[in-house]
């Protein structure tokens, strides 16, 4: 049977990281038995954050839960749940349910040439997979494109600074005000793809995309035109996850529910769907 009841989590730490965005660390306040599903969480999966008296909303893991039940998530202040979270302090108890959904296809990433493209908050579901790959060194080639609107909108700044020393990263910003040309490229995620693919050398074996849906679909179309198999391109689709277990109906995508069949879909799967149905 499904369990729709949250577990208590404590807010351990948080810091501002981008416009209206904070990087939180949470600690699951539960016994080993309740912890076990969390320890199986995969990169690209998500959890429901529960603010008692306010509501629930989905977020992805930037760091997966460790044996002590600590995990991290990037949260942008956007609606009532995140408003309430931002008013909480370190030490406060709130709730979480999860992990849910289908994560990134990790088995397809080992010892491969991988291109990762994240836009805005879309870097959040990619952070743990980038860290995992860098830490394990189980890749042939790994390059990351990160796109943001402007300087204020840049997110996961400490993480990207660390990655910068270890793998090629293309930071792309539409509005370059305040940013230097050497470190950042002017433009958009899709706009820089020709340059990235040119420097990549051989074609990437697998591409991971996350961010605004229009950015993801435009990038996927470009990559297919470039010759990459739609089955090798993976997107993280956002919908209004509500129950997170494939029942409430809110996140429908044709006959699928994004919460349980996704949020990771291959472009080949999405091409079969009417993405607005």
């Amino acid at each position, binding site marked *: 049977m*499904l369990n729709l009841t949250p577990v208590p989590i404590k807010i351990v730490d948080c810091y501002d990281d981008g416009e209206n965005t904070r990087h939180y660390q949470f600690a699951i306040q539960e016994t080993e038995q309740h912890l076990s599903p969390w320890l199986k969480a995969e990169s690209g999966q998500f959890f429901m954050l529960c603010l*008692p008296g306010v509501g629930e909303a989905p977020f992805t893991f930037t760091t997966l839960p460790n044996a002590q039940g600590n995990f991290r998530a990037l949260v942008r202040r956007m609606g009532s749940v995140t408003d309430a979270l931002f008013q909480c302090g370190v030490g406060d108890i709130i709730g979480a349910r999860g992990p849910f959904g289908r994560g990134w296809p990790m088995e397809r990433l080992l010892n491969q040439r991988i291109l990762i493209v994240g836009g805005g908050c879309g870097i959040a579901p990619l952070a743990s997979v980038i860290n995992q790959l860098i830490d394990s060194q189980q890749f042939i080639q790994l390059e990351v494109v990160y796109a943001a609107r402007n300087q204020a909108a840049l997110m996961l700044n400490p993480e990207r600074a660390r990655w910068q020393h270890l793998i090629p990263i293309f930071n792309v910003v539409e509005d370059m005000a305040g940013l230097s040309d050497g470190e950042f490229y002017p433009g958009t995620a899709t706009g820089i793809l020709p340059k990235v693919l040119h420097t990549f050398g051989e074609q990437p074996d697998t591409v991971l995309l996350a961010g605004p849906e229009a950015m993801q679909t435009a990038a996927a179309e470009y990559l297919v035109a470039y010759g990459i198999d739609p089955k090798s391109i993976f997107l993280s689709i956002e919908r209004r996850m509500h129950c997170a277990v494939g029942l409430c109906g809110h996140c429908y995508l044709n006959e699928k529910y994004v919460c349980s069949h996704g949020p990771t879909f291959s472009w080949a799967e999405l091409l079969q769907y009417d993405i607005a149905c």
Partner: protein
Amino acid sequence: MHKTYLLDSLDELQRHLAQSHEIYQVVPQSDDARADYHWQQVGSGNWPDLVEQKPLQSPKSFFFAEQEPLYVFDGETFEEVLPTPTPFVLFGVKSCDLMAIHYQDIFFEDDPYYQARRKQGLLVGVDCVTPCEQGFCQLVNAGPSVRDDTADLVLHPLDGQRWMLVVLSAAGKQALHGLALEDASPEDLHQRWENISHCEQSFPRYQYILEGIGKLNQHAISDEFWQQLGIQCLGCSGCTTLCPTCSCFATRPIESASSQQTSVTQVRFWDSCLYESFQREASFHNPASEAGQRVKRFWYHKFSDDFVPEFGRYGCVGCGRCEATCPGVIGVHSVMKRIADDA
């Protein structure tokens, strides 16, 4: 071969089942001839007859509650709140509504709230022997006879005020334990199928429904057509509320304060995919911002082949309630006629 019995009257069965169950049945809301019919608890010596009329609402709320608590937060911990209903009988459920329960059984297979109610419910179905207004169960394999895997017991009206009782499940057999019943004869069985066959032949043809389903699955309906229909959708949720297979829900917190502490109960309640805000995200990005998209989604969910592998059938059981309730005249008959004629 199912065990079949004869009943001279229903009282005997109702009385017997009432020894161990609450009994719910469809009754008129008042003595007015135009009154609506509703599911209601009955009993204690006053056993109503089964009525032919289709109740305004299907019995879906017995299992998928219109509103129910999921969990309570006391400030430190979250406690699941599961329903604990006493055993009950839905007495005289029509085949279309039974098929809808069967559909929901599949959908809510792993839902602990639904299943806590479902396992307490015994389903006594009743065959329809005359078509109901706007019903087309025979077109979507949901009636007029009760399908074998959708009920525990089935009643069938025979000549001369007698009833045939068909046992379909182990739970149905168990519920009859201790009741001495006369076996039905082969002639009675024959009469049941005669009656059902006659009923099936009495339905209007409704060819446009089949044509509509065909066009919908050939993706032959333009977005402009759906937008035209969308203009007529008032977003009232009448169709999704009355549709016996609709299952969308939302949740919200309700705070309750006592002198000692404040607790929060998270409740879930029926929602509707036809509401403008149904898919709207916190950022106000809305993949289904137009009424036409939402109307298209509703009918896609009811008649698309894409759902058949999961449920073994379409999401529509042919009850016609959407047509009866829609103030915008875009219930199933109106929509399918327009698809057949214009789309």
